[in-house]
């Protein structure tokens, strides 16, 4: 068995990388896959709190790199899903504690056992991003429908392509259908037109995300959450299923039409 390493990155901070990583990993694991997520944001760890696993940390990835702990000792099993694990970042160190070659080595070991290894990249284009990119088989770029986030996404796309990592896929996060409708937010089409990459997910702005992270419960497990549905759809697309894009506005079918335009046949 050889698992797939998926890097979630964005360039700009605060667009929802960690939320996306936690939820996609959760959705994949809930669907039966063996999944491990790695927080590559050393010094600013957060994937642990989003997953609600912050109280279980003993060892982290820097311990593994430095040989203080074995890989298995740093893997925290999720409290809900038996096939989901987290390898946390160190909180008191910085990005230089890990090298891209360390990440490659760790991921090679994890590929033996897991279907998916999800790497939560830090913001920026420096060492931490390089660490998260080095072992990657598939890159997911998270952006928001705003000028600064899309600009940074474009920069990241260029860097990923120059590393010959294959074409990255785009997640447009925090879209507000009512703002798009009145012409005050870039539409899915606008963003795709500018970035010219494959779309893998549209996630609506949704209050359940904050409630979920308050409690440490990813919304991917909440059947009623629209954002949760969007993340479950992304997970299915990662597995190769053809899933129609979420209907953000059921009243006039605007997004349904858009979905067809973007990817014929859903």
């Amino acid at each position: 068995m050889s698992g797939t390493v998926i890097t979630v990155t964005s360039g700009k901070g605060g667009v929802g990388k960690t939320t996306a990583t936690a939820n996609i990993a959760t959705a994949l694991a809930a669907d039966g896959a063996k999944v491990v997520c790695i927080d590559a944001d050393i010094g600013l760890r957060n994937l642990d709190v989003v997953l609600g696993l912050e109280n279980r940390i003993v060892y982290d990835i820097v311990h593994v790199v430095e040989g203080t702990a074995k890989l298995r000792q740093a893997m925290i099993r999720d409290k809900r899903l038996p096939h989901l694990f987290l390898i946390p970042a160190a909180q008191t160190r910085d990005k230089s504690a890990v090298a891209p070659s360390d990440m490659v080595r760790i991921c090679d070991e994890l590929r033996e056992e897991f279907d998916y290894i999800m790497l939560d990249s830090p913001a920026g284009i420096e060492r931490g991003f390089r660490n998260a990119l080095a072992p990657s088989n598939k890159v997911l770029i998270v952006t928001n429908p705003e000028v600064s986030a899309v600009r940074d996404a474009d920069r990241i796309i260029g860097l990923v392509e120059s590393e010959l990592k294959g074409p990255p896929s785009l997640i447009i996060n925090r879209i507000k259908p009512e703002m798009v409708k009145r012409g005050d937010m870039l539409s899915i089409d606008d963003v795709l037109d500018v970035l010219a990459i494959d779309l893998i997910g549209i996630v609506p702005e949704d209050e359940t995300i904050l409630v979920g992270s308050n409690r440490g419960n990813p919304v991917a497990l909440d059947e009623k959450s629209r954002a949760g549905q969007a993340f479950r759809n992304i997970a299915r697309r990662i597995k190769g299923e053809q899933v129609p894009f979420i209907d953000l506005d059921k009243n006039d079918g605007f997004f349904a039409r858009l979905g067809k335009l973007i990817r014929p046949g859903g």
Partner: protein
Amino acid sequence: MNNLLQRLTGRGQPPSKDVARDRLKLVLIHDRTDISPAIIEQLKDEIINVISKHVDIDRDGVEIKLQQAEHENRLIADIPLIKNPRRRR
């Protein structure tokens, strides 16, 4: 559709998302190529000088622009020749 209606009735400014999209496109052309508008101007002057050594061109009509399609960028030079130029030498 709302936007169109708004424009037809002449109400207000263009939708802010159109402004955002246009600004993005412009900033990305320069980000992607690392060619600033100032460099384009300089290129234009130098191209005019080189070409006009050999051919009579309409200096004011010369246009140099960056064009993008997908992930490919091109530098497009449009250099009009002067109509029926009489030989000077």
